[in-house]
């Protein structure tokens, strides 16, 4: 029996030895402990990379209806990517679909905020980083978090402010997870304060090793000027579109005072000043030799942001995604004209509106910065806009131009750098966009293609060429609204900004690697100018200086006064398609008055065969999709987006949702 006990004991001892806890300590192979990452500079970068990727930059991959970082892939059925918020405004229309995106964008960034909070909580316990390194990383995280809150604040007004990663406690009611909305004012104050604090800790620049694409203190301040201007405008104008409801009475949507507005304008001015005076950043090539050079310089800012680094405050980079999907972006493929389509199935999809083209100054204007509409009529009646261009009255006094491009000859250089206009040259090819013809006998043929003889004995085509496969770009006015013709302009214009003219781009998805400029000096100038003029704070003289600096860079030689209208007009033309216009309309509460059964306009160039040598005339008409849908409307409630998930998160819903 003794032996039995010994043997049993031995076995149990052996087992216990084996059973020592170590055996079950399996290292999870699909995750890495935080310490391992935080003690390695590259590890820190991977943590930041995740947070940056969650930062809601309204870049090429932002589809307001779908999400940030939206990719058009077979997996999502090739849904149109959208292009920022331009299609929600008077800037442009999509050629495809209904031509317009609904206002349904949303961003509920609390997963990114939680992850940022997690890193902020882990940083202080790392022993291998110096205090200075930690402070800089903390500041960078706060910038990212503030960017997320800013993006939510301008969509939802006041949102819950959560500054630490909340803990879920199983078996309890978890009441502390239910953080209520702050007021809109508290939210803006939080965003501005965070950006201010972040700017204090962030470096002025990053080395090539650390990553030039990381946000600097100037990015924080530039973003602060953007956010403060938004907050100030809402504080000043929110009553232009009065809303009612709990969110309003509890000041979660609007509810700010003129004093708040003044405060925010001042913060905008201060932040902008800091950037302008201390960042070392300035306008790229501020004094061009001539208009052509001005157009080239302006175009270069966007197609070569690295060369224009002096002006760029924050940009986002991409790597080639042609062999590994989802990495690059597809801008060059979606927006090139059919003639220079690199080989994609989708192209020519962005149609800038005539409304925007009209806003650009004419160098022959009166020196007051007045926008001069394109001159289509000899009776100067530019308000005769057709619902249906096929019913054009050919007896009206249309101005006749010798060449398609002539009508744009004196327009602001930035128009030519931003928009491909009919008859202009792009990538060495003349881009013909033409919607019809008037035959010798005065009969007309609009929106369909046929040939006719001119009095010069030559054959002319109503759409400018015999076929879409011909040497010339085919007009987009043919078959408007049909799914087969979505690859052509429907407005008479195509987008040029963000396309690369000197670069051969692949005709596949994710083939573009062009950087996206999120913040540049021009915006800071204009933020300063608007804040100064709206509030009377700061210097109105400086406001005018900044305003005219941009015009001078565009080849203007005169100075115009810094009126609010001039500043807003300058924002439109300088920053077209950069994602500013939509938010300008929102923050200043102009969208609902602008879009009341509003129809954006297009320009239909036609060839007129009645003269001895054929001439071009230009017909103003309504955007096809706007016309057929009865015009575009913006409801006042859409100044705020509906809070998602109120049934479970117990938040106060925004008005009228």
């Amino acid at each position: 029996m003794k032996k039995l006990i010994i043997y049993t004991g031995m076995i149990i001892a052996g087992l216990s030895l084996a059973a020592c806890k170590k055996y079950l300590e399996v290292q999870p192979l699909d995750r890495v402990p935080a310490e391992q990452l935080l003690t390695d500079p590259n590890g820190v970068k991977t943590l930041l990379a995740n947070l940056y990727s969650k930062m809601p930059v309204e870049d090429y991959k932002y589809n307001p209806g779908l999400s940030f970082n939206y990719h058009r892939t077979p997996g999502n059925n090739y849904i149109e990517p959208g292009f920022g918020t331009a299609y929600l405004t008077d800037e442009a229309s999509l050629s495809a679909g209904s031509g317009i995106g609904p206002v349904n964008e949303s961003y509920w960034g609390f997963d990114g905020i939680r992850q940022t909070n997690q890193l902020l909580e882990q940083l202080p316990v790392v022993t291998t980083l110096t205090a200075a390194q930690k402070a800089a990383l903390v500041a960078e995280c706060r910038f990212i978090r503030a960017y997320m809150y800013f993006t939510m604040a301008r969509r939802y007004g006041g949102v819950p402010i959560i500054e630490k990663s909340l803990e879920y406690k199983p078996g309890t009611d978890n009441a502390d997870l239910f953080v209520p909305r702050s007021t809109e004012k508290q939210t803006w104050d939080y965003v501005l304060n965070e950006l201010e604090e972040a700017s204090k800790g962030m470096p002025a620049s990053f080395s090539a090793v650390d990553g030039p694409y990381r946000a600097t203190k100037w990015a924080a301040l530039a973003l602060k000027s953007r956010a403060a201007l938004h907050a100030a405008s809402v504080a000043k104008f929110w009553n232009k579109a009065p809303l009612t409801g709990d969110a309003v009475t509890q000041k979660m949507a609007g509810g700010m005072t003129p004093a708040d507005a003044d405060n925010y304008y001042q913060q905008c001015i201060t932040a902008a000043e800091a950037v302008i005076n201390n960042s070392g950043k300035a306008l790229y090539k501020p004094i061009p030799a001539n208009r052509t050079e001005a157009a080239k310089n302006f175009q270069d800012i966007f197609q070569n942001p690295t060369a224009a680094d002096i002006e760029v405050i924050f940009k986002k980079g991409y790597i080639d995604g042609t062999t590994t999907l989802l990495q690059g972006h597809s801008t060059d493929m979606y927006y090139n004209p059919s003639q220079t389509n690199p080989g994609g199935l989708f192209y020519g999809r962005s149609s800038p509106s005539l409304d925007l083209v009209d806003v650009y100054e004419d160098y022959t204007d009166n020196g007051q910065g007045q926008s001069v509409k394109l001159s289509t009529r000899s009776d100067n009646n530019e308000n005769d806009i057709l619902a249906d261009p096929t019913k054009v009255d050919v007896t009206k006094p249309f101005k006749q131009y010798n060449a398609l491009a002539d009508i744009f000859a004196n327009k602001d250089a930035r128009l030519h750098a931003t928009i491909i206009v009919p008859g202009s040259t792009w990538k060495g090819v003349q881009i013909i966009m033409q919607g019809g013809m008037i035959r010798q006998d005065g009969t007309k043929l609009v929106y369909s293609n046929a040939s006719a003889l001119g009095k010069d004995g030559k054959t002319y085509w109503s759409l400018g060429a015999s076929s879409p496969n011909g040497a010339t770009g085919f007009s987009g006015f043919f078959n408007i609204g049909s799914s087969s013709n979505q690859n052509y302009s429907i407005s008479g214009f195509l987008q040029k900004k963000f396309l690369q003219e000197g670069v051969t781009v692949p005709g596949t998805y994710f083939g573009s690697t062009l950087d996206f400029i999120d913040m540049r000096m021009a915006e800071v100038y204009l933020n300063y100018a608007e804040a100064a003029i709206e509030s009377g704070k700061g210097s109105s003289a400086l406001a005018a200086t900044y305003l005219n600096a941009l015009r001078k860079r565009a080849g203007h030689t005169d100075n115009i006064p810094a009126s609010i209208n001039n500043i807003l007009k300058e924002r439109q033309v300088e920053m077209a398609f950069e994602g500013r216009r939509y938010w300008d309309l929102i923050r200043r509460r102009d969208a609902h008055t602008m879009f009341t059964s509003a129809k954006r306009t297009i320009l239909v160039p036609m060839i007129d065969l009645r003269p001895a040598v054929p001439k071009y005339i230009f017909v103003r008409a309504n955007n096809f999709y706007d016309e057929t849908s009865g015009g575009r409307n913006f409801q006042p409630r859409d100044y705020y987006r509906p809070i998602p998930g109120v049934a479970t998160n117990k938040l106060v819903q925004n008005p009228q949702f």
Partner: protein
Amino acid sequence: MHFKPLSSPPKRYSGTLIKTILMMKFTVFLLLIACMQVSASGFSQVSLAEKNVPLRSVFKKIQKQTGFDFLYDSQFLQEAGNVSIDVSNVSLEHALDLCFKGKPLAYTIIEKTIVVKPKPLVIAEVTALLELKEIISGKVTDEQGIPLAGASVYIKGSSKATVTDAQGRFNLEVDNLEGTLVLSFVGRIQQEFPLKGKKTFNVVLKSATEDLSDVVVIGYGSQKKETLSGAVVNIKSKDILTTKSTSVVSNIQGKIPGVHIRQQTAEPGTFNSLVSIRGFGTPLLVIDGVPRDGMSDFERLNPEDIESISVLKDAAAAIYGMNADNGVIIVTTKKGQKGLAKFNYSSFVGYKQPTSMPDMVDAYTYRTIRNEMDRNTKLSPTFSQTDLDKWKAGTEPGYIDYDWFKETLRDFTMQQQHNISASGGSEGITYYTSLGILADDGILKSDIQKYRKYNFRTNVTFQMTKDLKAIVTLAGKVDNNRSPQGSYFWFFKPLIIADRAFSPFVPGTNNVTRIPPEFTNPYALASEAISGYEKWSNVQYQTQVELQYDVPSIKGLKFGLLGAYDGNNNNWSNLARAYNQYDISTNAATLRGQNRYVNTMTQFGRAVVQASANYKTTIAKNHHIGATVVGEMRSLRSDIINASRFYADVYTWDIINQGTLTNAQNGGDRIIQKYLSLLGRFNYDFKNKYLLELAFREDGSYRYAPGKRWAMFPSASAGWRVSQENFMRNNAPWISNLKLRASYGMMGADQGNPFEYYLGYRYGNIDQGYVFNNGVLTSGMVPPGVVNENLTWIKTNTANLGIDLSLWDGKFGLVADWFQKDRNGLLATKIQSVPNTFGASFPQENINKDMVKGFELIVSHKNKIGKLRFEVSANMTYARKYLVYSERAPYASTMQKWKDTWGTGGRVLGREWGYLYDGRYTDLLQYQTAPLMGGAAGNSMMLPGSFAVKDVDGNGIINGDDQLPEFWSGQYQGFAGNPPLQYGATINLAWGAFDMNMLFQGSALFSIFAAPNDVWGYGRYPGMWEKYMDRWRLEDPNMNPYDPSAKWIPGEYPALRSNFNNTTDALTTDRWRMNASYARLKSTEIGYTLAPQFAKRIKIDNLRVFVNGFNLFTFANPLAKNLDPEKEEGAYQADLTYPLMRSFNFGINLNF
């Protein structure tokens, strides 16, 4: 020197020589055997030069030269005749080999003694002879007085043992006449007799199908069946092999009560039968003491290798604790027996055809019906009369009917299986080794479907010392399969709905056609050359070494150490080819698909180490005590790598490197799992009458946080053998056995995501990276969501009450069990409103609860009438599952709660909502007063023959509110995919040399859905089932069906339509969701065993030939049968799965 006579030579060994020749055929085995039979060498050298002298004189010479003694039977030596030998300086062994060459003699060297004996004699006997003191003798027969040859005879607790000869006689030398003589024979009740000085024993061994003294393998040990107190069922090799098929699971289907088996498809190589014990879920599979790979591994075992299968159904499984809560299936493989090699060859070749394949109408009929459907749907007819006439003639090109089933499917296909095994051994070593091959081809004419399986197994037992034994197992299988590139679903659907107006090829070309409505071509889909393939191959090996040590100083104490390493290499690949399909009239090409190759390789390894101690003793004669302690370590590792490539330019080879780099994808993973267990069991019984078993198991899983890793699973069971009580014995001797059993125990399952407790960052996707430096993407590491340190084992409580009853020596038998299983801590995520401001989702927690309750019953009867012996056994199990707690958002209304099939609070699972069928409308006028069916369209689309549906809420409108939980769920639903009620019956008949085994099997309380508007051509597609011709139709097809004066011919189905809009025809009633209860004659096998005298004449031990058939006959709703009620319904409940097969096999089983 001692010369002692041996017992008289058994005559059955006289065929040794021929046997040897037969053996030559199996060189592979022989090599193996030869290795095992090598004895110790290094003996003295001998030189001999003898010519035609008696063996005895040669022996004397050898004895002089070497000093070795000889032991032999002189009579036998004389019979062996003279010998010539001329050798110099050869080894003793070599000299002896030459002496015995061609003689019916064998020798064994024991120390310095050379024992000469007839070839198969077992050394134990000889050893015993050396110290012979007394001889006992006798004869063993069966009930009919027929001698039992080969019965084992031994003295309990000693090494004295022998076997009976052909006359059933035995002689056994014993030290004294004190011990207990044990007589046993396979399949018969073992008997024991105290010698008490007696020397002669003539014994009748009774047949024992219900042999209570059978030893049953239970977890970590074995136990006599009579002293079991848990619900354990055991099935032996003999019963497994009464039906032969390609899968072990088919072999045992319906034979083991409580084991639910449903064959889901007959797709070769899938082996995806649903196996569950009492409807619980997939059981744990243990092969030779080690948990292995589950049901797929089980099904692929070679049935011939299996010695026995035990099924632990209740808390008896708790000894396996971890993941045993669905019950345990324990497989024990065959081991060798001492003696000369015995060979078994068994094989069958089978023919099989689908149990159900729809009959489809031809192209012309479809078109006439299409027009009828159009009229019935108020549409204009699709086909003109001219067209129809051409189709009717069917001669003009383009108007010819093609039977797509005939074009692509065979009428029947073949399967075959061959298995050969050898077993035997000598004193030190016994072995069993086998090799099996299975070939199974599909029913596709393209020949793409091929499955091959090769099994081997070698079990060797080494008796290393008197007390130490080692069992070495090496088993493996290689199987591989090739099938069409897409799944069978995407082959059968286009096949069934293909328009029969289309030929496979554009006439006059080899171009495959593009066939509406799906624009595919079944011929192309089944062709490897055109559309590609899916292939996998699997190489599996299982190795195991087990040491058993009987501690000599303490009787009854054993130590065991087991190490096993199993591995698996899997190579899966799928090649999709791009190919052109051509328009049948214009021959214009349309490209289909892209060339793409996907390859996944998985390497799996599992190491198990078990250390055990086992003690058995009897105190004061009546107290039997047993105790077992085991420690177990288990570690598993999988490495997976996969890659895919497209071929942008040209397809070359199905190799990753041959594809295009654009959009190349790859992935890889590694999974490591570790478990640790400590378990113990204590058995006690008093006089084999009062039984008690207590067990515990402590399991640790790597999966959980350190504090939550370990779980303790205790269990207890008790039994009372009432029939052993004197009052029963005296008053009711006809009760052979009556036992009451009760058990209760806990088990667990380690589920949930591993490492939920671990705060770590994961590698993000591409779009979670960011560009910090020009042209360089920095990968993003994503922080953890919510860490949950509380996740732990799912815990199960199982209770079982049972009764075993056997009357009149087993003529009538009854086993009944009631059981209940409660599971706590099932995984769910808290619904309790995660505010979306939280920024992460809640983790899995142990929240839900469910419960399964049921009972099972076995009734058996066996008897004989004249020469006819028969056994009938029927079993049934009924089990239902209740959701005790199920986390969910609050119901908006009580109605919603009531309607939720998956509701909580004691809801029974397995009910389906539908409408009540209420006869038919026979006249258009009836619709004026009938409840409204079609929403806004009212009854305007209804026709005579449509189903009337009960307006349950009486509001005059038929809508969703009129549904009731009227139906049993389909097989695809519910918890284990098995219907709640399952039954089976076996009938075994034996008459002389003939035997017959029939197996009935079935299920009830479930339904099957014949989706009328999807693929069955009920209007939507050109393929139409013949059965739908039995429909309501106009007497005059040219009349307007909506004319009230039109006369209708009634039929089984309502008037056919192009769509069901605004009608009741497609609503879920019992017309479409049919009761699918069935009983089927699952298998029948008839065998003939060659009479022993003939067998002897052709020098074999045993020969049995048999024919069997599977899925021979089904009793079911004839409409449901059309869809084979046993088969899985598959995706969309469309029944587009590989059909089950009716098969006929012819085979032989040869022992020699």
